[in-house]
C-alpha cells in the first residue's frame, strides 16, 4: 500500500466530525451539522473505495494470493521491554470489504437522516454520535491486534448505547439502551477473558503472529495451549469459545440476542446503520478474523459456532413471522441473517475450494448490508409518514410512496433469495457449503430461507397493500430528496451487489474459488422462496380473516412465538428470582450487617471515647493554662525523682 496516511484518514475523519460536532455542534452547527457530517463521511467513503480499488486491483496480490498487509504499527503502551500493546492497521480482503460497506452504509444513513431527523432539537448531537460510531466501527475493522479490536469493540458498544437511548425522554428507549449495554458488556467479559487466554498462551496480541503460532502444527505454543485444560476442555477451545461469546453478544446470537429487538427504540436510520448493516456483523467479522485458528486448530469450537448460528437463524425467523412492529420484524430478520453468516463460517474449512462457507459468509455479509439497510431506511420512510411502527396503522401505501415501495420490494426479493437479486447469490453459496458439509444444517437453512421469504412478504403486503389506498392522508408526502437518494442507491446495489466477484477476492486462504453452483441446485431453495411469497400473497395481500384463523389454530405455538418464546421472561426469572434472591440478597445482608456493622462498631467506639473526654476542651483559657501547668509539674517530678 503506497500511502498509509490516507488509510489512517478513513477512520479519523469521522472522529474529527464527532469532536467538532460534539463540542461546537449545538452552538455553531445547529442546522449545518448534517451537511458537515455527510461531507466528512463522503470523503471517508471515497478514501475507502480507492483503498479497495488499490488493494484488489493493484497492490494486494502477491503470486496470485491476497496478502495480509500491515501498513502501520507503533507501540502504544509499553509495560516492560518486550511486553507492549501496539496499535496498527491491518489490511486484508475482509477489512477492505468492511471498510467499503461501513463507510458507504454510514454515508447513506447520514444522507437519509438529513431529512428524517430534520427539526430535532439534538440534531447536531445525533450527527456527532453517528460520527463516533463510524469512527469506532472503521477502527474495529482496521485493527491489527486483538487488544486494539477490543478497544474499538467497546467504543462501538458505547456509541450504540448512546444512539439507542437518543430519545432519552422515552423510558422505553432508556431501558432498551441499558439492556443493550448490559447484555453486550456481559458478553464482552467473555471476550476479554478469551483474549487473555489466547494471548497468554501465544505470547502475542498481534493477529498475524497469533494466528501463525496457533495454527502451525507442532509449534510449542499450540502444544501448550492444547495440553492445558479446564473442565476437560482444552485452553484453546475455551479461548476461542469465549471470544465467540463476545461475538455472539454483539451479533445477537441466541441466547444473547435479547437486546436487539429492543434496540429498535433508537432512531430508524440508526437501526439501519448499527443494528442491521455494521455493528451486529462485528461478531461475524471477529470469527472470520480468527477463522484460521478455528478451522485449522479447533474444529470443535467451530461446531459450536455452526450450531449456534443455525439455531439462531431458524429461531429468529419463526419469531419474525408473528411480530407486528415492523422494525421488530426487521430486527429478527437481521438476527436470522446473521445466523446464516455464522453457520456458514461454521461449516467452512480453510483450504481452497472447501473454504466456500467462509466466502459465502463474507459475501452474505456484503449483500445483506445493502438490502437490510435499505429495508430499514424504507421502514424509516414509512414510519416518518405514518408516525407509527405498527402494521395495523399501515397498508395501502404503494401509491403514496412509490419510490419507497419499489425499493422495499427489491430489498424483499433480495433477502428472499430470488434471482437475480443480490441475496440469491450469497445465499446459494451458503446453502451449497452447508449441503456439502452437514445435511442437518442444510435442512435448517432451507427451511429458514422459506420462512424468510414468507415473513418478508408478510411485512411488504401489510405495509403497502392490504388496505385501500385512500385510508391515509399523507400530510408531508414521501419525504425529502435526501431521503429518496439513499433508497435508490441502495436499491441499485441490492440488485447488482450479487455480481461482485467476491469469490475471487475474499476467501479464507487468499486463493480464488472457482467453483460455480449448478443451476439444478438452485431450484429447491428458489422454489421454496416462491412458495413462501405465494403463501404471504394469499394471506396478506388483501385484508381477510385467514391469518387470524390460522393463528388461532396454531394456538400455543403462535402465542409463544409472538411472545418471543419467553426468552425475556426466562432472563428476568434468572436475574430476579435466582440471582437476586439467592446471591444478591445474602450478599446485601452480609454487606449491611457484617461489613457495615464492623465499621459502625469502630465509629461507635470512637464516638463514645470522645464523649468521655470532650469535657476537657472547655473553651476556657485558664483551664488550658491549668493543664499546662499541671503537665509541667508532672514532668518536673518525673525528671527529678524517676529519671535515674
Amino acid at each position, binding site marked *: 500500500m503506497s500511502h498509509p496516511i490516507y488509510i489512517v484518514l478513513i477512520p479519523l475523519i469521522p472522529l474529527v466530525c464527532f469532536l467538532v460536532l460534539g463540542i461546537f455542534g449545538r452552538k455553531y452547527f445547529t442546522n449545518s451539522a448534517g451537511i458537515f457530517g455527510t461531507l466528512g463521511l463522503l470523503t471517508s467513503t471515497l478514501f475507502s473505495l480507492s483503498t479497495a480499488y488499490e488493494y484488489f486491483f493493484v497492490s494486494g496480490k502477491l503470486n496470485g494470493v491476497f496478502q495480509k498487509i500491515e501498513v502501520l504499527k507503533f507501540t502504544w503502551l509499553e509495560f516492560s521491554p518486550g511486553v507492549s500493546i501496539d496499535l496498527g492497521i491491518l489490511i486484508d480482503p475482509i477489512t477492505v470489504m468492511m471498510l467499503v460497506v461501513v463507510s458507504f452504509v454510514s454515508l447513506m444513513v447520514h444522507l437519509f437522516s438529513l431529512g428524517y431527523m430534520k427539526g430535532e432539537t439534538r440534531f447536531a448531537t445525533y450527527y456527532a454520535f453517528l460520527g463516533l460510531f463510524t469512527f469506532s466501527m472503521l477502527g474495529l475493522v482496521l485493527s491489527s491486534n486483538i487488544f486494539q479490536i477490543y478497544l474499538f469493540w467497546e467504543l462501538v458498544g458505547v456509541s450504540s448505547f448512546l444512539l439507542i437511548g437518543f430519545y432519552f425522554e422515552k423510558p422505553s428507549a432508556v431501558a432498551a439502551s441499558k439492556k443493550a449495554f448490559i447484555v453486550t458488556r456481559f458478553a464482552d467479559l467473555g471476550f476479554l477473558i478469551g483474549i487473555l487466554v489466547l494471548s497468554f498462551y501465544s505470547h502475542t496480541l498481534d493477529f498475524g503472529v497469533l494466528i501463525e503460532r496457533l495454527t502451525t502444527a507442532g509449534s510449542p505454543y499450540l502444544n501448550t495451549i492444547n495440553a492445558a485444560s479446564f473442565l476437560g476442555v482444552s485452553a484453546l477451545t475455551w479461548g476461542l469459545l469465549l471470544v465467540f461469546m463476545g461475538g455472539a453478544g454483539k451479533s445477537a446470537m441466541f441466547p444473547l440476542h435479547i437486546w436487539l429487538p429492543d434496540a429498535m427504540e433508537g432512531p430508524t436510520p440508526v437501526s439501519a446503520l448499527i443494528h442491521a448493516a455494521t455493528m451486529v456483523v462485528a461478531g461475524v467479522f471477529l470469527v472470520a478474523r480468527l477463522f484460521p485458528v478455528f478451522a485449522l486448530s479447533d474444529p470443535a469450537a467451530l461446531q459450536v459456532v455452526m450450531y449456534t448460528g443455525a439455531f439462531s437463524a431458524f429461531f429468529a425467523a419463526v419469531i419474525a413471522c408473528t411480530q407486528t412492529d415492523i422494525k421488530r420484524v426487521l430486527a429478527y430478520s437481521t438476527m436470522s441473517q446473521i445466523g446464516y453468516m455464522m453457520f456458514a463460517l461454521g461449516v467452512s474449512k480453510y483450504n481452497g475450494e472447501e473454504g466456500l462457507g467462509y466466502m459465502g459468509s463474507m459475501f452474505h455479509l456484503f449483500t445483506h448490508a445493502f438490502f437490510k439497510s435499505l429495508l430499514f431506511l424504507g421502514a424509516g420512510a414509512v414510519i416518518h409518514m405514518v408516525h407509527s411502527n405498527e402494521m395495523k396503522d399501515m397498508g395501502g401505501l404503494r401509491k403514496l410512496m412509490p419510490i419507497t415501495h419499489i425499493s422495499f420490494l427489491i430489498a424483499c426479493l433480495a433477502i428472499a433469495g430470488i434471482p437475480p437479486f443480490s441475496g440469491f447469490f450469497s445465499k446459494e453459496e451458503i446453502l451449497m457449503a452447508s449441503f456439502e458439509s452437514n445435511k442437518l444444517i442444510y435442512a435448517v437453512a432451507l427451511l429458514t430461507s422459506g420462512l424468510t421469504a414468507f415473513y418478508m412478504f408478510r411485512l411488504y403486503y401489510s405495509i403497502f397493500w392490504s388496505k385501500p389506498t385512500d385510508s391515509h392522508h399523507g400530510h408531508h408526502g414521501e419525504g425529502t430528496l435526501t431521503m429518496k437518494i439513499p433508497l435508490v442507491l441502495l436499491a441499485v446495489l441490492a440488485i447488482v451487489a450479487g455480481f461482485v466477484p467476491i469469490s475471487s477476492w475474499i476467501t479464507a486462504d487468499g486463493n480464488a474459488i472457482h467453483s460455480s453452483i449448478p443451476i439444478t441446485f438452485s431450484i429447491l431453495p428458489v422454489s421454496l422462496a416462491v412458495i413462501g411469497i405465494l403463501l404471504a400473497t394469499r394471506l396478506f395481500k388483501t385484508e381477510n380473516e385467514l391469518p387470524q384463523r390460522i393463528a388461532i389454530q396454531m394456538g400455543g405455538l403462535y402465542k409463544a412465538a409472538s411472545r418471543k418464546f419467553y426468552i425475556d421472561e426466562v432472563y428476568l426469572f434468572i436475574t430476579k428470582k435466582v440471582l437476586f434472591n439467592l446471591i444478591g440478597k445474602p450478599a446485601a445482608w452480609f454487606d449491611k450487617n457484617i461489613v457495615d456493622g464492623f465499621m459502625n462498631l469502630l465509629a461507635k467506639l470512637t464516638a463514645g471515647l470522645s464523649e468521655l473526654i*470532650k469535657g476537657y*476542651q*472547655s*473553651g*476556657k483559657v485558664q483551664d488550658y*493554662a*491549668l493543664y499546662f501547668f499541671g503537665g509541667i509539674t508532672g514532668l518536673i517530678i518525673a525528671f527529678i525523682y524517676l529519671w535515674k
Partner: protein
Amino acid sequence: MSEIPLTHILFLSTGLFFIGVYGLFTRRNMITMLMSVELMLNSVNINFVAFNKYLYPEKLDGIFFTIFVITIAAAEAAVAIAIIINLYRSHHSIDVEDASEMKY
C-alpha cells in the same frame, strides 16, 4: 553586718511566683492575668540576680539574662495588649469566660 542568706531571697521569689500562678488561674480579667504573668517573670528575674550574686559574683551572666527577660516581657505585654484590644472589639468584654467559642 551579716549577709542576707540566699534562702530568704528564694522564699521571696517562690512566694512571688505562686502569687502570680494563683492570679493567673483565678482572675477572669485579662489585664489582671497579664499582670500575674509579669509577677511570675519578675520572680524569675530575682532568682537570676540572686544566684548570680551568690554563686558567681565575678560574672554577669545572670544579670544579662534578666535584661533579656525584661525585654521579652515588654514585647509580650505589647502582644497581649493587642490581643486584649481585639477581644474587646469582638466581644465587648475582656472577661475570658465570655470567649469560649472554641470549645468542643
